[in-house]
Protein backbone atom coordinates (compact mmCIF):
# COMPACT_ATOMS: atom_id res chain seq x y z
CA UNK A 1 0.00 0.00 0.00
CA UNK A 2 1.52 3.30 -0.93
CA UNK A 3 0.28 6.81 -1.22
CA UNK A 4 0.65 9.23 -4.03
CA UNK A 5 2.96 11.99 -2.88
CA UNK A 6 2.09 14.50 -5.57
CA UNK A 7 -0.75 16.85 -4.63
CA UNK A 8 -3.13 16.46 -7.55
CA UNK A 9 -5.98 18.95 -8.05
CA UNK A 10 -8.34 16.25 -6.73
CA UNK A 11 -6.29 15.92 -3.56
CA UNK A 12 -6.35 19.63 -3.15
CA UNK A 13 -10.12 19.70 -3.51
CA UNK A 14 -10.51 16.85 -1.08
CA UNK A 15 -8.36 18.69 1.43
CA UNK A 16 -10.45 21.82 0.98
CA UNK A 17 -13.61 19.83 1.56
CA UNK A 18 -12.10 18.13 4.54
CA UNK A 19 -11.39 21.46 6.14
CA UNK A 20 -14.80 22.85 5.36
CA UNK A 21 -16.70 22.99 8.61
CA UNK A 22 -20.41 22.85 8.18
CA UNK A 23 -22.77 21.98 11.01
CA UNK A 24 -22.31 18.22 10.43
CA UNK A 25 -18.53 18.48 10.54
CA UNK A 26 -18.55 20.52 13.72
CA UNK A 27 -21.11 18.27 15.36
CA UNK A 28 -18.90 15.35 14.45
CA UNK A 29 -15.87 17.01 16.04
CA UNK A 30 -17.81 17.77 19.21
CA UNK A 31 -19.08 14.21 19.30
CA UNK A 32 -15.50 12.96 19.02
CA UNK A 33 -14.47 15.34 21.74
CA UNK A 34 -17.17 13.87 23.97
CA UNK A 35 -15.92 10.40 23.18
CA UNK A 36 -12.41 11.62 23.85
CA UNK A 37 -11.47 10.43 20.42
CA UNK A 38 -10.12 13.43 18.52
CA UNK A 39 -7.06 13.09 16.33
CA UNK A 40 -4.37 15.73 16.71
CA UNK A 41 -5.41 17.40 13.50
CA UNK A 42 -9.08 17.36 14.46
CA UNK A 43 -8.29 18.81 17.85
CA UNK A 44 -6.48 21.67 16.16
CA UNK A 45 -9.45 22.37 13.94
CA UNK A 46 -11.82 22.36 16.88
CA UNK A 47 -9.51 24.63 18.89
CA UNK A 48 -9.34 27.00 15.94
CA UNK A 49 -13.10 27.16 15.75
CA UNK A 50 -13.41 27.73 19.49
CA UNK A 51 -11.33 30.89 19.23
CA UNK A 52 -13.93 32.60 17.04
CA UNK A 53 -16.72 34.75 18.46
CA UNK A 54 -18.95 33.19 21.11
CA UNK A 55 -18.14 29.68 19.97
CA UNK A 56 -16.54 28.61 23.22
CA UNK A 57 -19.64 29.58 25.12
CA UNK A 58 -21.81 27.48 22.80
CA UNK A 59 -19.34 24.63 23.05
CA UNK A 60 -19.46 24.66 26.85
CA UNK A 61 -23.24 24.52 26.75
CA UNK A 62 -23.34 21.74 24.16
CA UNK A 63 -20.93 19.53 26.06
CA UNK A 64 -22.66 19.89 29.42
CA UNK A 65 -23.85 16.45 30.47
CA UNK A 66 -27.15 17.60 31.92
CA UNK A 67 -27.86 19.53 28.75
CA UNK A 68 -27.14 16.44 26.65
CA UNK A 69 -29.25 14.23 28.87
CA UNK A 70 -32.15 16.65 28.66
CA UNK A 71 -31.83 16.84 24.89
CA UNK A 72 -31.73 13.09 24.54
CA UNK A 73 -34.72 12.70 26.82
CA UNK A 74 -36.69 15.05 24.60
CA UNK A 75 -35.53 13.27 21.46
CA UNK A 76 -36.63 10.04 23.00
CA UNK A 77 -40.01 11.49 23.88
CA UNK A 78 -40.39 12.89 20.36
CA UNK A 79 -39.48 9.51 18.91
CA UNK A 80 -42.59 8.05 20.53
CA UNK A 81 -44.82 10.28 18.43
CA UNK A 82 -42.72 10.42 15.26
CA UNK A 83 -44.65 7.72 13.46
CA UNK A 84 -48.09 8.80 14.62
CA UNK A 85 -47.40 12.46 13.79
CA UNK A 86 -46.58 11.44 10.24
CA UNK A 87 -50.28 11.09 9.62
CA UNK A 88 -50.69 14.81 10.28
CA UNK A 89 -48.33 15.65 7.45
CA UNK A 90 -49.83 16.92 4.26
CA UNK A 91 -47.49 15.07 1.89
CA UNK A 92 -49.51 15.93 -1.14
CA UNK A 93 -49.30 19.62 -0.38
CA UNK A 94 -45.95 19.73 -2.10
CA UNK A 95 -47.27 18.54 -5.42
CA UNK A 96 -49.69 21.43 -5.50
CA UNK A 97 -52.91 20.05 -4.07
CA UNK A 98 -55.84 22.41 -3.76
CA UNK A 99 -56.21 21.93 -0.05
CA UNK A 100 -54.05 24.54 1.59
CA UNK A 101 -54.26 25.19 5.28
CA UNK A 102 -53.18 28.44 6.82
CA UNK A 103 -50.12 26.91 8.46
CA UNK A 104 -48.27 30.15 9.02
CA UNK A 105 -45.57 31.72 6.91
CA UNK A 106 -42.09 33.00 7.63
CA UNK A 107 -42.40 36.50 8.99
CA UNK A 108 -39.18 37.73 7.50
CA UNK A 109 -41.14 38.48 4.39
CA UNK A 110 -43.34 40.60 6.62
CA UNK A 111 -46.20 38.66 5.18
CA UNK A 112 -48.32 36.78 7.60
CA UNK A 113 -50.65 33.91 6.87
CA UNK A 114 -52.91 33.75 3.94
CA UNK A 115 -56.41 32.60 4.49
CA UNK A 116 -57.67 30.20 1.94
CA UNK A 117 -61.06 28.96 2.69
CA UNK A 118 -63.49 26.89 0.85
CA UNK A 119 -66.88 28.40 1.00
CA UNK A 120 -69.90 26.34 0.48
CA UNK A 121 -73.02 28.19 -0.49
CA UNK A 122 -76.56 26.91 -0.37
CA UNK A 123 -77.64 25.65 -3.75
CA UNK A 124 -74.29 24.33 -4.86
CA UNK A 125 -70.61 24.22 -4.24
CA UNK A 126 -68.69 27.35 -4.78
CA UNK A 127 -65.03 27.27 -4.04
CA UNK A 128 -63.33 30.51 -3.49
CA UNK A 129 -59.62 30.54 -2.93
CA UNK A 130 -58.64 33.85 -1.61
CA UNK A 131 -55.01 34.44 -0.90
CA UNK A 132 -54.88 37.22 1.59
CA UNK A 133 -51.77 38.99 2.70
CA UNK A 134 -52.20 41.30 5.56
CA UNK A 135 -50.55 43.06 8.36
CA UNK A 136 -51.95 41.64 11.56
CA UNK A 137 -52.17 44.81 13.57
CA UNK A 138 -53.79 46.78 10.80
CA UNK A 139 -56.61 44.34 10.15
CA UNK A 140 -57.01 44.13 13.89
CA UNK A 141 -57.80 47.82 14.05
CA UNK A 142 -60.33 47.63 11.27
CA UNK A 143 -62.71 45.37 13.06
CA UNK A 144 -61.83 45.55 16.69
CA UNK A 145 -62.85 48.68 18.46
CA UNK A 146 -60.72 48.08 21.53
CA UNK A 147 -57.67 45.97 21.90
CA UNK A 148 -57.32 43.15 24.39
CA UNK A 149 -60.92 42.07 24.35
CA UNK A 150 -61.93 38.76 22.82
CA UNK A 151 -58.46 37.22 22.81
CA UNK A 152 -58.14 33.61 21.73
CA UNK A 153 -58.24 31.13 24.59
CA UNK A 154 -55.37 29.31 26.23
CA UNK A 155 -54.56 26.86 29.02
CA UNK A 156 -56.90 28.06 31.73
CA UNK A 157 -58.78 25.97 34.28
CA UNK A 158 -59.92 25.81 37.86
CA UNK A 159 -59.52 22.70 39.98
CA UNK A 160 -62.02 22.07 42.74
CA UNK A 161 -60.61 19.59 45.22
CA UNK A 162 -62.47 17.20 47.46
CA UNK A 163 -62.66 19.54 50.46
CA UNK A 164 -64.27 22.24 48.32
CA UNK A 165 -61.10 24.32 47.93
CA UNK A 166 -60.42 25.87 44.54
CA UNK A 167 -57.08 26.21 42.75
CA UNK A 168 -56.72 28.53 39.77
CA UNK A 169 -54.37 26.57 37.55
CA UNK A 170 -53.18 29.53 35.48
CA UNK A 171 -51.56 31.19 38.49
CA UNK A 172 -50.30 28.09 40.25
CA UNK A 173 -46.65 27.41 39.60
CA UNK A 174 -45.61 24.06 38.18
CA UNK A 175 -45.10 21.25 40.62
CA UNK A 176 -46.97 19.59 43.43
CA UNK A 177 -50.29 21.35 43.98
CA UNK A 178 -51.90 19.28 46.64
CA UNK A 179 -52.29 15.80 48.00
CA UNK A 180 -55.64 14.07 47.84
CA UNK A 181 -55.50 11.14 50.19
CA UNK A 182 -52.68 9.02 48.86
CA UNK A 183 -52.68 10.75 45.48
CA UNK A 184 -50.36 13.60 44.50
CA UNK A 185 -51.72 16.26 42.17
CA UNK A 186 -48.99 17.82 40.08
CA UNK A 187 -49.16 20.66 37.61
CA UNK A 188 -46.91 19.99 34.63
CA UNK A 189 -45.47 22.60 32.33
CA UNK A 190 -47.73 22.35 29.33
CA UNK A 191 -51.22 23.03 30.63
CA UNK A 192 -51.49 19.58 32.07
CA UNK A 193 -52.40 18.16 35.45
CA UNK A 194 -51.23 14.75 36.58
CA UNK A 195 -52.66 12.54 39.28
CA UNK A 196 -50.37 9.94 40.66
CA UNK A 197 -51.62 7.50 43.20
CA UNK A 198 -49.89 4.96 45.34
CA UNK A 199 -50.72 1.34 44.79
CA UNK A 200 -52.28 0.91 48.19
CA UNK A 201 -56.02 1.26 48.16
CA UNK A 202 -57.56 4.31 49.73
CA UNK A 203 -60.51 3.65 51.99
CA UNK A 204 -62.72 6.41 50.63
CA UNK A 205 -63.19 7.76 47.15
CA UNK A 206 -62.70 11.49 46.81
CA UNK A 207 -63.78 13.49 43.81
CA UNK A 208 -62.11 16.42 42.11
CA UNK A 209 -63.57 18.60 39.41
CA UNK A 210 -61.61 20.45 36.78
CA UNK A 211 -63.47 23.20 34.94
CA UNK A 212 -62.36 25.27 32.02
CA UNK A 213 -63.88 28.70 31.50
CA UNK A 214 -64.90 29.98 28.10
CA UNK A 215 -61.62 30.49 26.30
CA UNK A 216 -59.86 27.80 28.32
CA UNK A 217 -58.61 24.29 27.75
CA UNK A 218 -56.67 21.82 29.89
CA UNK A 219 -55.29 18.32 29.99
CA UNK A 220 -55.53 15.90 32.90
CA UNK A 221 -53.77 12.62 33.40
CA UNK A 222 -55.62 10.34 35.79
CA UNK A 223 -53.86 7.92 38.14
CA UNK A 224 -54.55 5.01 35.77
CA UNK A 225 -52.68 6.74 32.94
CA UNK A 226 -55.81 7.86 31.10
CA UNK A 227 -55.37 11.23 29.41
CA UNK A 228 -58.22 13.66 28.98
CA UNK A 229 -58.17 16.93 27.05
CA UNK A 230 -60.88 19.33 28.13
CA UNK A 231 -62.22 21.89 25.66
CA UNK A 232 -63.45 25.32 26.75
CA UNK A 233 -66.53 25.85 28.93
CA UNK A 234 -66.38 22.25 30.09
CA UNK A 235 -65.94 20.40 33.31
CA UNK A 236 -64.96 16.93 34.37
CA UNK A 237 -65.60 15.24 37.70
CA UNK A 238 -63.39 12.28 38.52
CA UNK A 239 -62.21 10.27 41.51
CA UNK A 240 -58.66 10.99 42.70
CA UNK A 241 -57.98 7.27 42.95
CA UNK A 242 -59.61 4.35 41.18
CA UNK A 243 -60.26 1.80 43.84
CA UNK A 244 -63.62 0.48 42.83
CA UNK A 245 -64.74 -2.06 40.28
CA UNK A 246 -64.98 0.55 37.57
CA UNK A 247 -63.62 3.94 36.57
CA UNK A 248 -66.35 6.55 36.23
CA UNK A 249 -66.09 10.19 35.26
CA UNK A 250 -68.72 12.83 34.58
CA UNK A 251 -68.40 15.32 31.77
CA UNK A 252 -70.10 18.58 30.90
CA UNK A 253 -69.15 20.15 27.60
CA UNK A 254 -66.50 18.57 25.40
CA UNK A 255 -63.45 16.39 25.97
CA UNK A 256 -61.18 14.02 24.13
CA UNK A 257 -60.24 10.81 25.92
CA UNK A 258 -57.33 8.44 25.57
CA UNK A 259 -58.29 5.75 28.01
CA UNK A 260 -55.64 3.43 29.41
CA UNK A 261 -56.55 -0.18 28.86
CA UNK A 262 -57.65 -2.13 31.90
CA UNK A 263 -60.10 -4.90 31.12
CA UNK A 264 -60.84 -5.61 34.76
CA UNK A 265 -61.89 -2.02 35.40
CA UNK A 266 -64.23 -0.64 32.73
CA UNK A 267 -64.21 3.10 32.12
CA UNK A 268 -67.46 5.06 31.98
CA UNK A 269 -68.14 8.60 30.86
CA UNK A 270 -71.48 10.12 31.75
CA UNK A 271 -72.36 13.26 29.82
CA UNK A 272 -75.68 14.97 29.47
CA UNK A 273 -77.69 11.80 30.02
CA UNK A 274 -75.48 9.71 27.76
CA UNK A 275 -73.32 6.95 29.13
CA UNK A 276 -70.26 5.83 27.23
CA UNK A 277 -68.85 2.43 28.15
CA UNK A 278 -65.21 2.34 27.19
CA UNK A 279 -62.82 -0.47 26.48
CA UNK A 280 -59.35 1.15 26.24
CA UNK A 281 -59.52 3.59 23.40
CA UNK A 282 -59.43 7.09 21.92
CA UNK A 283 -62.62 9.06 21.45
CA UNK A 284 -64.17 12.51 21.65
CA UNK A 285 -67.32 13.45 23.52
CA UNK A 286 -69.09 16.66 22.59
CA UNK A 287 -71.97 17.19 24.98
CA UNK A 288 -72.45 20.93 25.28
CA UNK A 289 -75.94 21.64 26.46
CA UNK A 290 -76.31 24.49 23.98
CA UNK A 291 -75.56 22.23 21.03
CA UNK A 292 -78.53 20.48 19.40
CA UNK A 293 -77.08 17.00 19.97
CA UNK A 294 -74.37 15.16 21.85
CA UNK A 295 -71.71 13.61 19.63
CA UNK A 296 -69.45 10.73 20.54
CA UNK A 297 -66.76 10.10 17.95
CA UNK A 298 -64.52 7.06 18.09
CA UNK A 299 -60.98 7.15 16.73
CA UNK A 300 -59.59 3.89 17.98
CA UNK A 301 -60.74 0.86 19.94
CA UNK A 302 -64.32 0.35 20.87
CA UNK A 303 -66.99 2.13 22.94
CA UNK A 304 -70.63 1.52 23.68
CA UNK A 305 -72.94 4.52 23.82
CA UNK A 306 -75.96 4.15 26.04
CA UNK A 307 -79.02 6.30 26.54
CA UNK A 308 -81.60 4.86 28.90
CA UNK A 309 -82.22 1.37 27.57
CA UNK A 310 -80.91 1.96 24.05
CA UNK A 311 -77.29 1.17 23.25
CA UNK A 312 -75.05 1.37 20.23
CA UNK A 313 -71.59 -0.07 19.73
CA UNK A 314 -69.20 2.19 17.82
CA UNK A 315 -66.44 1.11 15.48
CA UNK A 316 -63.43 3.35 14.81
CA UNK A 317 -64.34 6.23 12.50
CA UNK A 318 -67.97 6.16 13.53
CA UNK A 319 -69.95 8.76 15.42
CA UNK A 320 -73.04 8.50 17.60
CA UNK A 321 -75.32 11.53 17.70
CA UNK A 322 -77.77 11.62 20.54
CA UNK A 323 -80.90 13.73 20.16
CA UNK A 324 -83.77 13.53 22.61
CA UNK A 325 -82.80 10.10 23.89
CA UNK A 326 -82.35 8.63 20.42
CA UNK A 327 -79.01 7.45 19.05
CA UNK A 328 -78.16 8.11 15.43
CA UNK A 329 -75.17 6.19 14.10
CA UNK A 330 -73.01 7.98 11.53
CA UNK A 331 -70.99 5.26 9.80
CA UNK A 332 -68.38 7.57 8.32
CA UNK A 333 -67.92 10.51 10.66
CA UNK A 334 -65.98 13.66 9.86
CA UNK A 335 -63.04 12.99 12.17
CA UNK A 336 -61.34 16.25 11.24
CA UNK A 337 -64.38 18.09 12.48
CA UNK A 338 -64.62 16.16 15.73
CA UNK A 339 -60.92 16.48 16.51
CA UNK A 340 -60.31 20.00 15.19
CA UNK A 341 -60.42 21.67 18.61
CA UNK A 342 -57.79 19.33 19.99
CA UNK A 343 -55.61 20.04 16.96
CA UNK A 344 -55.90 23.79 17.53
CA UNK A 345 -58.42 24.49 14.81
CA UNK A 346 -62.03 25.22 14.10
CA UNK A 347 -63.22 22.96 11.35
CA UNK A 348 -66.51 23.74 9.72
CA UNK A 349 -68.18 21.42 7.31
CA UNK A 350 -71.33 22.88 5.87
CA UNK A 351 -71.98 24.62 9.19
CA UNK A 352 -74.66 27.23 9.77
CA UNK A 353 -73.74 30.69 11.05
CA UNK A 354 -75.23 29.76 14.43
CA UNK A 355 -73.00 26.69 14.73
CA UNK A 356 -69.96 28.75 13.81
CA UNK A 357 -70.78 31.47 16.29
CA UNK A 358 -71.44 29.04 19.13
CA UNK A 359 -67.97 27.60 18.70
CA UNK A 360 -66.30 30.99 18.43
CA UNK A 361 -68.21 32.20 21.51
CA UNK A 362 -66.81 29.45 23.67
CA UNK A 363 -63.23 30.00 22.61
CA UNK A 364 -63.08 33.80 22.47
CA UNK A 365 -65.45 34.19 25.42
CA UNK A 366 -67.95 36.20 23.42
CA UNK A 367 -70.71 37.33 25.75
CA UNK A 368 -73.49 37.63 23.25
CA UNK A 369 -74.05 37.15 19.55
CA UNK A 370 -76.79 39.31 18.10
CA UNK A 371 -78.16 38.86 14.62
CA UNK A 372 -79.23 42.07 12.85
CA UNK A 373 -81.19 42.16 9.62
CA UNK A 374 -81.77 39.03 7.57
CA UNK A 375 -79.86 36.05 8.88
CA UNK A 376 -77.53 34.55 6.34
CA UNK A 377 -78.51 31.19 4.94
CA UNK A 378 -74.97 30.56 3.75
CA UNK A 379 -73.10 27.67 5.25
CA UNK A 380 -69.42 27.60 6.03
CA UNK A 381 -66.76 25.05 5.20
CA UNK A 382 -63.08 25.33 6.02
CA UNK A 383 -60.49 25.59 8.77
CA UNK A 384 -59.52 28.49 11.02
CA UNK A 385 -56.61 28.26 13.46
CA UNK A 386 -57.66 28.71 17.06
CA UNK A 387 -54.73 30.98 17.78
CA UNK A 388 -55.98 33.60 15.35
CA UNK A 389 -57.28 36.78 16.88
CA UNK A 390 -61.06 37.14 16.75
CA UNK A 391 -60.76 39.87 14.12
CA UNK A 392 -58.70 37.60 11.84
CA UNK A 393 -61.17 34.78 12.34
CA UNK A 394 -64.12 37.05 11.50
CA UNK A 395 -62.26 38.42 8.48
CA UNK A 396 -62.09 34.94 7.08
CA UNK A 397 -65.80 34.40 7.67
CA UNK A 398 -66.55 37.76 6.04
CA UNK A 399 -65.33 36.29 2.77
CA UNK A 400 -68.68 34.57 2.50
CA UNK A 401 -71.03 37.53 2.47
CA UNK A 402 -71.63 38.05 6.11
CA UNK A 403 -70.40 40.94 8.21
CA UNK A 404 -69.55 41.50 11.83
CA UNK A 405 -69.31 44.33 14.26
CA UNK A 406 -67.61 43.97 17.63
CA UNK A 407 -68.85 45.96 20.60
CA UNK A 408 -66.93 45.12 23.76
CA UNK A 409 -67.59 41.42 24.28
CA UNK A 410 -70.63 41.32 22.00
CA UNK A 411 -70.67 40.53 18.31
CA UNK A 412 -73.31 41.71 15.85
CA UNK A 413 -73.83 39.57 12.79
CA UNK A 414 -74.95 41.63 9.80
CA UNK A 415 -75.95 40.52 6.35
Amino acid at each position, binding site marked *: MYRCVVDTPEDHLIRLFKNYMG*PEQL*ADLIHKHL*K*NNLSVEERERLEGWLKEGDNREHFTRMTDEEYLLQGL*TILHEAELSRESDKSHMDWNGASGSARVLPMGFPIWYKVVAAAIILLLFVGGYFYLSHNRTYNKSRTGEQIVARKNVLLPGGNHAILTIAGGGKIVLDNASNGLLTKQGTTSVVK*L*SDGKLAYNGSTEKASTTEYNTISTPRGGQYQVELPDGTNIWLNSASSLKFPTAFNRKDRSVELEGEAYFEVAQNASMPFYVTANGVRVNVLGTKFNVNAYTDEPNAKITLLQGSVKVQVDQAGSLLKPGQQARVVAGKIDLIKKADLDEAMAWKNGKFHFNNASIETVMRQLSRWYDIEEVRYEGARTANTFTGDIDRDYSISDALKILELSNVHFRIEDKKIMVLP
Partner: protein
Amino acid sequence: MPGYSDSELVEGFLNGEKKAFEELYDRYYNTIVRFCFSMTKNMEDAKDVALSALTILFKKHKDFNSLTHIRAFLYLTAKHRCLDQLKSTHRLAERYKKYFETKLHDPQETFIDQVDGELFRILYKSIQQLPPQSKNVIKLLYIDELKYQEVADLLHLTVKNVYNMRNYALKKLRESLSSLSLLSLLYTMVFSFFY
Protein backbone atom coordinates in the same frame (compact mmCIF):
# COMPACT_ATOMS: atom_id res chain seq x y z
CA MET B 1 -31.36 4.82 6.41
CA PRO B 2 -30.83 2.50 3.53
CA GLY B 3 -31.44 3.50 -0.03
CA TYR B 4 -30.74 7.21 0.04
CA SER B 5 -27.46 9.00 -0.18
CA ASP B 6 -27.54 12.70 0.66
CA SER B 7 -27.45 13.75 -2.97
CA GLU B 8 -30.15 11.29 -3.98
CA LEU B 9 -32.22 12.55 -1.09
CA VAL B 10 -31.94 16.15 -2.28
CA GLU B 11 -32.78 15.12 -5.83
CA GLY B 12 -35.79 13.09 -4.73
CA PHE B 13 -36.90 15.99 -2.60
CA LEU B 14 -36.61 18.43 -5.50
CA ASN B 15 -38.73 16.11 -7.60
CA GLY B 16 -41.35 15.95 -4.90
CA GLU B 17 -40.94 12.22 -4.19
CA LYS B 18 -42.94 11.16 -1.18
CA LYS B 19 -40.20 8.76 -0.09
CA ALA B 20 -37.70 11.59 0.06
CA PHE B 21 -40.13 13.64 2.13
CA GLU B 22 -40.56 10.79 4.54
CA GLU B 23 -36.83 10.30 4.82
CA LEU B 24 -36.32 13.98 5.62
CA TYR B 25 -39.17 13.83 8.08
CA ASP B 26 -37.60 10.85 9.83
CA ARG B 27 -34.21 12.49 9.88
CA TYR B 28 -35.26 15.81 11.32
CA TYR B 29 -38.52 15.39 13.23
CA ASN B 30 -36.90 14.51 16.57
CA THR B 31 -34.19 17.11 16.50
CA ILE B 32 -36.54 19.87 15.40
CA VAL B 33 -38.94 18.96 18.21
CA ARG B 34 -36.06 19.21 20.68
CA PHE B 35 -34.94 22.50 19.19
CA CYS B 36 -38.46 23.90 19.51
CA PHE B 37 -38.86 22.56 23.04
CA SER B 38 -35.77 24.51 24.07
CA MET B 39 -37.73 27.65 23.17
CA THR B 40 -41.36 26.83 23.89
CA LYS B 41 -40.78 24.60 26.93
CA ASN B 42 -43.87 22.75 25.87
CA MET B 43 -43.86 19.39 24.16
CA GLU B 44 -47.18 19.77 22.35
CA ASP B 45 -46.25 23.19 20.98
CA ALA B 46 -42.84 21.90 19.98
CA LYS B 47 -44.37 19.04 18.02
CA ASP B 48 -46.89 21.34 16.35
CA VAL B 49 -44.15 23.72 15.28
CA ALA B 50 -41.96 20.89 14.00
CA LEU B 51 -44.83 19.58 11.89
CA SER B 52 -45.69 22.96 10.45
CA ALA B 53 -42.03 23.75 9.70
CA LEU B 54 -41.72 20.44 7.84
CA THR B 55 -44.97 21.10 5.99
CA ILE B 56 -43.74 24.50 4.87
CA LEU B 57 -40.45 22.94 3.76
CA PHE B 58 -42.25 20.32 1.68
CA LYS B 59 -44.47 22.89 0.05
CA LYS B 60 -41.37 24.80 -1.06
CA HIS B 61 -39.46 21.71 -2.16
CA LYS B 62 -38.65 23.16 -5.56
CA ASP B 63 -36.55 25.95 -4.07
CA PHE B 64 -33.72 23.88 -2.60
CA ASN B 65 -30.57 22.45 -4.04
CA SER B 66 -28.63 21.11 -1.07
CA LEU B 67 -29.13 19.42 2.25
CA THR B 68 -27.39 22.33 3.99
CA HIS B 69 -29.89 24.70 2.49
CA ILE B 70 -32.82 22.46 3.43
CA ARG B 71 -31.64 22.13 7.00
CA ALA B 72 -30.94 25.84 7.43
CA PHE B 73 -34.42 26.64 6.18
CA LEU B 74 -35.95 24.09 8.52
CA TYR B 75 -34.25 25.50 11.60
CA LEU B 76 -34.96 29.08 10.68
CA THR B 77 -38.63 28.38 9.96
CA ALA B 78 -38.99 26.45 13.21
CA LYS B 79 -37.46 29.33 15.13
CA HIS B 80 -39.82 31.84 13.57
CA ARG B 81 -42.81 29.65 14.31
CA CYS B 82 -41.72 29.21 17.93
CA LEU B 83 -41.40 32.93 18.31
CA ASP B 84 -44.88 33.41 16.85
CA GLN B 85 -46.20 30.74 19.16
CA LEU B 86 -44.69 32.41 22.21
CA LYS B 87 -46.03 35.78 21.15
CA SER B 88 -49.53 34.52 20.51
CA THR B 89 -49.75 32.85 23.89
CA HIS B 90 -48.34 35.95 25.55
CA ARG B 91 -45.52 33.94 27.02
CA LEU B 92 -42.79 36.10 25.59
CA ALA B 93 -41.80 39.00 27.81
CA GLU B 94 -41.51 42.30 25.97
CA ARG B 95 -37.83 42.69 26.79
CA TYR B 96 -36.98 39.36 25.14
CA LYS B 97 -38.75 40.18 21.91
CA LYS B 98 -36.03 42.50 20.70
CA TYR B 99 -33.36 40.01 21.65
CA PHE B 100 -35.08 37.19 19.80
CA GLU B 101 -35.71 39.25 16.73
CA THR B 102 -32.13 40.45 16.37
CA LYS B 103 -30.82 36.94 16.99
CA LEU B 104 -33.26 35.60 14.43
CA HIS B 105 -31.40 37.15 11.55
CA ASP B 106 -27.93 36.35 12.79
CA PRO B 107 -26.51 33.66 10.48
CA GLN B 108 -24.11 32.56 13.20
CA GLU B 109 -27.06 31.71 15.48
CA THR B 110 -28.69 29.57 12.83
CA PHE B 111 -25.40 27.85 12.26
CA ILE B 112 -25.05 27.03 15.96
CA ASP B 113 -28.66 25.80 16.08
CA GLN B 114 -27.78 23.34 13.35
CA VAL B 115 -24.56 22.21 15.03
CA ASP B 116 -26.60 21.57 18.13
CA GLY B 117 -29.22 19.63 16.18
CA GLU B 118 -26.69 17.55 14.30
CA LEU B 119 -24.87 16.72 17.52
CA PHE B 120 -28.07 15.37 19.04
CA ARG B 121 -28.80 13.44 15.87
CA ILE B 122 -25.41 11.73 16.06
CA LEU B 123 -25.70 11.09 19.79
CA TYR B 124 -29.21 9.75 19.50
CA LYS B 125 -28.21 7.39 16.72
CA SER B 126 -25.25 6.09 18.68
CA ILE B 127 -26.92 5.88 22.06
CA GLN B 128 -30.54 5.09 21.17
CA GLN B 129 -31.53 3.54 24.47
CA LEU B 130 -31.96 5.64 27.53
CA PRO B 131 -31.57 3.76 30.78
CA PRO B 132 -35.09 2.47 31.43
CA GLN B 133 -35.07 2.59 35.24
CA SER B 134 -34.58 6.29 35.37
CA LYS B 135 -36.45 7.19 32.18
CA ASN B 136 -39.47 8.36 34.09
CA VAL B 137 -37.38 10.42 36.46
CA ILE B 138 -35.43 12.22 33.78
CA LYS B 139 -38.60 12.81 31.78
CA LEU B 140 -40.22 14.54 34.75
CA LEU B 141 -37.03 16.47 35.48
CA TYR B 142 -36.19 17.58 31.99
CA ILE B 143 -39.44 17.71 30.08
CA ASP B 144 -41.94 18.62 32.74
CA GLU B 145 -39.24 20.59 34.52
CA LEU B 146 -40.29 19.53 37.98
CA LYS B 147 -38.12 19.99 41.04
CA TYR B 148 -36.40 17.03 42.69
CA GLN B 149 -38.80 17.18 45.62
CA GLU B 150 -41.79 17.17 43.28
CA VAL B 151 -40.56 14.21 41.30
CA ALA B 152 -39.99 12.38 44.56
CA ASP B 153 -43.54 13.14 45.72
CA LEU B 154 -45.03 12.14 42.43
CA LEU B 155 -43.27 8.80 42.21
CA HIS B 156 -43.31 8.09 45.94
CA LEU B 157 -39.55 8.10 46.16
CA THR B 158 -37.10 9.93 48.36
CA VAL B 159 -35.26 12.92 46.97
CA LYS B 160 -32.09 10.90 47.27
CA ASN B 161 -33.59 8.16 45.07
CA VAL B 162 -34.39 10.75 42.44
CA TYR B 163 -30.85 12.12 42.55
CA ASN B 164 -29.46 8.63 42.27
CA MET B 165 -31.62 7.84 39.28
CA ARG B 166 -30.58 11.00 37.52
CA ASN B 167 -26.94 10.24 38.28
CA TYR B 168 -27.43 6.75 36.99
CA ALA B 169 -28.75 8.18 33.72
CA LEU B 170 -25.75 10.49 33.48
CA LYS B 171 -23.43 7.59 34.17
CA LYS B 172 -25.05 5.55 31.41
CA LEU B 173 -24.68 8.46 29.05
CA ARG B 174 -20.99 8.71 29.88
CA GLU B 175 -20.57 4.99 29.49
CA SER B 176 -22.24 4.83 26.13
CA LEU B 177 -19.97 7.63 24.96
CA SER B 178 -16.81 5.99 26.22
CA SER B 179 -17.70 2.45 25.16
CA LEU B 180 -17.99 3.81 21.67
CA SER B 181 -14.61 5.42 21.97
CA LEU B 182 -13.18 2.10 23.13
CA LEU B 183 -14.69 0.36 20.16
CA SER B 184 -13.40 2.89 17.68
CA LEU B 185 -10.02 2.86 19.40
CA LEU B 186 -9.91 -0.88 18.94
CA TYR B 187 -10.96 -0.42 15.37
CA THR B 188 -8.23 2.12 14.59
CA MET B 189 -5.68 -0.14 16.27
CA VAL B 190 -6.65 -3.13 14.17
CA PHE B 191 -6.76 -0.93 11.12
CA SER B 192 -3.30 0.58 11.66
CA PHE B 193 -1.91 -2.87 12.30
CA PHE B 194 -2.74 -3.91 8.77
CA TYR B 195 -1.32 -0.87 7.06
